[in-house]
């Protein structure tokens, strides 16, 4: 029997890879190994609908399972701890060794954590997994004082959700404006204004330097020495790629797994492994729509785009055309629904092109005079029209 395609990571990227392999005609064995006990589920609702729901359950976020992938071998609750790319094996924390014909790296991200002198855990939360959301949900009761550290999308979405649940919410972040990097000054400032209008407080150019409390968090100490009382402390300060298990191989994992234009892992010589592939936000890849700089892209559509590409390449034995996905993202905060295409973080300027800033509006984002993205609140058809700017 030929060796299976082994997919490490059983979240959206892993599932979509398995589906794509079947869709493009691969009929051999597929094994998916993941460290969570849950079958693949959708993460974005964890900071929003799921957190706001009466009941947090796997069922509400699970991806539908399709007949085409019913014979995929799921190895859940097992962490892959090492890989030997020369001998085409991976090994789990229980010492089980899996041989592969092709390896798909889809291990995603984990939240960065702050290290505090007062290392208490009760009342302290992150949001990445369903289990994280379940434990946080139980503490977001009306009147609870919530401090969110970090003003990226997850921090701001979580703040909005907690506020809607009746919590007193303060977002603490070192930057000058929330969501500045992905959205630019003007749109980001407007979103801050809308969050504040809903009652979310922002303490910017500040960070949390320590926690206060004995058995559980009862306050945080800010870097200016002031104390802010709280019942719940949520860290949302960005993510770290899960690549430690790949250490010791001829690859570059300095910031995610470096892959080439075909999503194959790159060796030190500059050649690529012909049977090691990257899928999702763990991957650093060049995207010729924008330039030749490899980047990690933490947008929800990227795992699916990678999976489609890699599944096709493995199934057909042809890498095909180079990989150039159009990044897109959305964010829901209160009744504000943002949709964007492109890599807005590359921009050095943005301009309002339709609507008005305090209502529905569309912004274009430029790096020099190159259009690198567009984002809008409402005006969907207009925003969608920008997608074709990035098609080749």
């Amino acid at each position, binding site marked *: 029997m030929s060796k299976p395609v082994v997919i490490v990571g059983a979240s959206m990227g892993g599932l979509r890879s398995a*589906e794509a392999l079947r869709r493009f005609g691969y009929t051999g064995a597929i094994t998916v190994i993941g460290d969570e006990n849950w079958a693949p589920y959708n993460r974005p609702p964890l900071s929003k609908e799921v957190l706001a729901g009466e009941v947090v359950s796997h069922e509400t976020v699970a991806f539908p399972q399709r007949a085409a992938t019913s014979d995929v071998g799921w190895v859940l609750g097992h962490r892959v701890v090492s890989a030997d790319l020369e001998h085409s094996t991976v090994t789990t924390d229980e010492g089980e060794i899996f041989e592969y014909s092709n390896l798909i790296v889809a291990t995603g991200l984990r939240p960065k954590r702050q290290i505090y002198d007062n290392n208490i855990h009760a009342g302290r939360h992150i949001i990445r997994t369903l289990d994280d959301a379940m434990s946080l949900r139980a503490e977001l009761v009306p009147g609870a004082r919530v401090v969110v550290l970090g003003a990226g999308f997850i921090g701001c979405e979580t703040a909005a959700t907690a506020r809607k649940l009746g919590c007193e919410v303060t977002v603490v972040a070192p930057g000058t404006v929330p969501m500045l990097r992905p959205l630019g000054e003007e749109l980001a400032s407007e979103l801050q204004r809308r969050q504040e209008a809903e009652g979310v407080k922002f303490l910017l150019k500040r960070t949390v330097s320590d926690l206060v409390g004995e058995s559980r968090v009862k306050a945080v100490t800010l870097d200016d020495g002031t104390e802010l009382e709280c019942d719940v402390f949520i860290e949302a300060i960005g993510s770290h790629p899960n690549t430690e298990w790949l250490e010791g191989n001829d690859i570059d994992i300095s910031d995610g797994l470096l892959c080439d234009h075909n999503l194959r892992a790159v060796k030190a010589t500059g050649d690529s492994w012909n049977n090691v592939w990257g899928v999702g936000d763990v991957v650093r890849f060049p995207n010729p729509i924008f330039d030749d700089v490899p980047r990690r892209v933490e947008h*929800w559509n990227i795992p699916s785009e990678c999976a489609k590409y890699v599944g096709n390449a493995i199934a057909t034995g042809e890498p095909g055309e180079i990989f150039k996905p159009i990044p897109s993202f959305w964010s829901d905060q209160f009744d504000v629904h943002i949709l964007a295409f492109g890599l807005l973080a590359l921009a050095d300027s943005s301009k309002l092109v339709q609507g008005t800033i305090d209502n529905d509006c569309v912004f274009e984002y430029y790096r020099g005079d190159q259009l690198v993205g567009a984002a809008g609140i409402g005006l969907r058809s207009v925003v969608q029209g920008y997608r074709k700017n990035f098609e080749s």
Partner: protein
Amino acid sequence: MIKINVDMNKCQHYGMCVFEAPAVFKLNSDDKLEYTATADDSERANVEAAVDVCPMQAIFIVD
């Protein structure tokens, strides 16, 4: 024939499905999603792709 259901309580009219299965999904002049409740079997792959790209995971194929 396949049956399609969109949970309109979840749908935020992002319209990503429109790119995948334009024969089934469209945004109307008010930028609201409209869709046909049934489609030919030949549309299954496109509708599955639409299911996959829906940010709200609001699209269901009723088998």
